Every structure is written in C-alpha cells, then in structure tokens.
C-alpha cells in the first residue's frame, strides 16, 4: 500500500501483533480464580511509574474514581494517559502530577461545566505534554484494532485535518476503492481501570446502560483492574450470560468499591456530585488550591470509605441517588456564577 501521509504524533501503546500475542499467552491467566484484592493492592501491583493508563467510562460517567484517587494517594509518577474523553480523571491526575503525557481526543474540559484550570495550566506551562491528537471514534477504533489482534484499522475520519497531522495515524491509498483512507494504529494500554455495577469474584462483569467503549478497551488492555459497586455470586452471572460484557479471563484484579465512581455518575444508581466537581473546579484555579484539595480529599484520608464520609456520607449519596432517578432536582454551584 502506498503511504500518502503520516501524522507526526507519538505512537502510544502500539505493539507488534505477534509480540502482543506472545505477551497475552504468557501473562494473561485463563484460569478461573478468585481475583479479589483491595484497590491499594491492585494499584501497587499493576501500575508502575511510567505506565500508559486508560479509564473506562466516558467523561464523568462510570469512571473508576476509586482507582484514580488511589493512584494519586500512591503518588505514581510519569504516567501517560489516554484522553479518550477523559475529564475529571485526567484533570486530577494531571493536577496531582501523576500524569505528564496525554494522547488527546478530549481533555482539559468538564463539558458544560467549563474548562479545567489545573490540567490546562499544566499544558500551557509545559508540565504536561500532549504527545498526540485524535478523536473519540479514532481512539475507540484503536482499541478495536487492538482487541482484534490487528496492527491497524482503516477508517474515514481524521482525514484532511490538523487532528490527523498531530496523530500517529497514516493515510494510504485503499487498494479496493483507490481512495485515500486513514489507518489507525492498534492501541494496547498497559493498565485499564473499568468500573461496573456488578461482577463475580473471577471478574465476569455486567454493565447497565451504554457500554461506551469498554467492550473494546477491556479486550485491548494488557492489565485490567475491575472495580465494582457490588460483587455478586457467580450463579447470578451465569443465569444470564448474555449480559456479561467483560468475561473473567480479561480481568487481573477485582475490587468491590460501593460508590466507586463518585463524583462521577453511575447510571441508574447515582448522579454526578456537582457540588464536589464544583469544589474541585473552584479550588484548582490556583496550584495552592489544588494542593489543598488533594490534602483534604486524598492524602489526608486513609481510603475511599473515608473519602465518602468526607464528601457528605450517606446523606449526600442518598441525594445523588434521588437525582439520578429523576426524583430530586439537580443543584450545581457552577450554574450560579453568571
């Protein structure tokens, strides 16, 4: 195939497909075994400094925030992160100095809530580097190529733009149609964190609502840490096997963390904690304020349960459940200012 154009972005998370097959053969256990551990153990064991990480979910939806806070608590350094519509997770990981490289489809913003002071400051001062650009569809198709064991996948987005120029993609002449087509390289993150409503002790997991790109991401991940609202008996999973989105052999660690996505939304269970997100957005306007936030909500606390007490405990969590179920109106401090 004739290469017509090449993006200048850094190629992140790519492996030769044979090398990755061999890695999978050696490192991914196909044995049905109890994988329960604490989030502290999972992060200590599977997240080395310098790793390339990605979070499941989307924006502020169904993100494993328990894992994100634990990465900060363990002061991991020089991580590269997939900005696959990474919002609160990326913002605080960059703000805490854990992530200093990002491949960006969407980052530095909190959607309707406005832009992210902490991570923008880091990029604008050079503390954090954007190593490549791409789009949301492009990112998940990179994971699709990864899960298929292919070196790349042809697509028709990115073409003609600067997003392509700063990506790690290439444009070739399609041997079938003769038209230019974009080739997206496969992507295999070193460690992926996915939060689900329920799974069993082996890691067989169900998702309620949209799957977003977690089907592909879980299968492209080298290491997969699953956090769950609830660990259920294996029999409950096997009663409705068609509901399993992530089967056990993809999973390296299973951690039960009720409310583990707070302050993000867990569909059907709890809404975004706008008060908390607003507090971070306000505090992170200055580096001192960001530090104060981490002292208050991460370093000064023992674990995620302490954090849940700190953000308002049962009373707050009950309120978030009512908002999610359309039984109480949403209140958001970021709406008040002009």
């Amino acid at each position, binding site marked *: 195939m004739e290469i017509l154009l090449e993006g200048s972005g850094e190629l992140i998370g790519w492996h030769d497909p044979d090398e990755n097959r061999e890695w999978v053969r050696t490192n991914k256990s196909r044995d049905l075994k109890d994988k329960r551990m604490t989030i502290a153990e999972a992060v200590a064991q599977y997240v080395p400094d310098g790793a390339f990480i990605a979070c499941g979910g989307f924006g502020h939806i169904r993100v494993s925030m328990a894992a994100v806070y634990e990465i900060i608590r363990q002061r991991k350094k020089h991580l590269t992160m997939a900005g696959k519509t990474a919002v609160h997770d990326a913002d605080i990981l960059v703000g805490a100095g854990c992530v200093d490289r990002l491949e960006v489809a969407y980052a530095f913003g909190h959607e309707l809530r406005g832009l992210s002071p902490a991570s923008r400051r880091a*990029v604008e001062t050079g503390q954090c580097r954007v190593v490549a650009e791409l789009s949301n569809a492009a990112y998940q198709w990179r994971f699709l190529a990864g899960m298929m064991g292919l070196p790349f996948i042809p697509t*028709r987005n990115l073409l*003609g733009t*600067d997003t392509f120029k700063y990506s790690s993609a290439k444009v070739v002449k399609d041997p079938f149609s003769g038209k230019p087509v974009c080739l997206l390289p496969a992507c295999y993150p070193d460690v992926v964190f996915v939060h689900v409503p329920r799974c069993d002790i082996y890691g067989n997991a169900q998702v309620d609502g949209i799957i977003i790109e977690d089907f592909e991401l879980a299968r492209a991940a080298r290491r997969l840490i699953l956090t769950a609202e609830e660990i259920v008996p294996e029999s409950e999973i096997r009663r409705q096997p068609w509901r399993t989105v992530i089967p056990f052999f993809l999973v390296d660690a299973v951690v039960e963390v009720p409310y583990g996505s707070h302050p993000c939304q867990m569909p059907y269970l709890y809404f975004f904690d706008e008060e908390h997100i607003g507090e971070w957005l306000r505090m992170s306007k200055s580096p001192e304020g960001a530090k104060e936030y981490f002292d208050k909500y991460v370093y000064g606390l023992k674990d995620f349960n302490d954090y849940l007490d700190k953000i308002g405990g049962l009373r707050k969590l009950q309120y978030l459940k009512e908002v999610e179920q359309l039984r109480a109106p949403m209140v958001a401090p970021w*709406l008040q200012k002009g």
Partner: protein
Amino acid sequence: MKPNYTPTELLATVASKLLEDGKSVFVGTGLPMIAAMLAQRTHAPRLLIIFEAGGVGPRVPVLPISVGDSRTFYQAAAASSMHDVMSLCQAGYIDYGFLGAAMIDRYGNINTTVIGEHDHPQARLPGSGGANDIGSLCWRTIIIMRQEKRRFLQKVDFITTPGYLTGPGAREKAGLPAGTGPYRIITQLGLYGFDEASKRVKLLAVHPGVTIEQIQENSEFEILIPDYVETTEPPTAEERRLLHEIDPAGMAIGK
C-alpha cells in the same frame, strides 16, 4: 423595543427548525441537545437522536450534562456503544451532525484544539472529542456558535474538524465520504449556509433587528451576501416554555 426572548432561546429555536421529522441527528453537548429535544417536542416527534457514547433514539427527559449521561439513553431504542454509533455515522445512517465550535473559517473548518502553536499553546482547548468524527462522517453538519471577529477567522490556528478544507472537492480528495460537509452555521446574529460553487460561508437569514453590517463587522473573513436575505422567526411563547422545561436548571438556555 427589547425582545421578550434571549439570544440563546433564539439560537435554540432556529436550530431546532432545521431538523426534519423522521430523520437522524447526532448531537453534541449543550445547545445542540436542546435544539434536538425541542424539535422532538414540536415539529419532529419521530426525530432519531443519537449520542456518541451509545444512546440511540432516547426520549430525553431533561437536558443531559454530557453526551454519555444516563439521560442520553432514557427510554431509548437502544443503549449501545461508541463503536456502534460511530460505525452508523461512517456507514451513512446519520443525516445531521450537530456541533458547537470555538472558532471557524470561511470553509467551515472548526478549531476546538488550541490557540497559538500546538506544542507551545497560548490556550489549550479540549480537542476533537467526537467533533472530527461527526464533521467527517455525518451527511450534513450543523454548527452552533457565538459569532465574533476573533471566532470567525480568515484562518484557524488548528483544523480540528473538517469543513470544506481548502474549497470545492477538497473533502473528497482527502478521502472523506463523498457528499458530506457543513450545512448550516447558526450564531447569535444569523443563519448561514455554504455557497454551492465556492463552498464559502454565505448568509441565509439575519435574526430580527440584526443588520448586514453587523454580520460583516463580526467576521474576519468576507461573508457572501445574497440579494435576498430572510429574517428568522423569533421564538414563540410555547417554544420558550418548552426550552425551560427541557433545561429547568438553565444549564445551556440560561435562567
């Protein structure tokens, strides 16, 4: 006389009227969502709304905060995946793509990535998100944005999402799907289309009380002005009521 509606309400109603009943639309965060929800509650009850994180054909109860929010698959036809809905776009199922934008040029190319040099940014913006995909793969792209001289630019610092690139034929030459491209731009001043021959931004209608001078003053590039320019319809009381019912917190429509 001061109008009894806000510029944002006007934007939302004008945008909503562009959407046809029985067609499909892929919507981004904020005003595009409101416009699609309003269309579904007025002239287009069978409008198929698609969200990039996997919401397919929902009956959206209140304005979602995010395109992945559980409101985006409330009473939906399907709660699916990004691979599924982005593939639907690429395969030709989506009639309209609906985007917000920070900056745009005469060919409808959009920048939402960076102001200044990419590697030493003056200001870093969020990046493409799903915008590049929507602008590349949907049949017709509709853009809602604020019009100012620093946003309607001769040249954008970074083409995040493709408009007509460098002009006629450029999209097809780059390999983008044939027959796609930007269709309308809606700003607080007017409604724009694209000239068939040159693919440049062309005025179609001004909002009530807006002059052609204001249209041109608020753009760095020359806007094509046809002989006949329409005036948009102001929002009705019923439309305004619906807008605030859709967005009771005033997240995008204001208080």
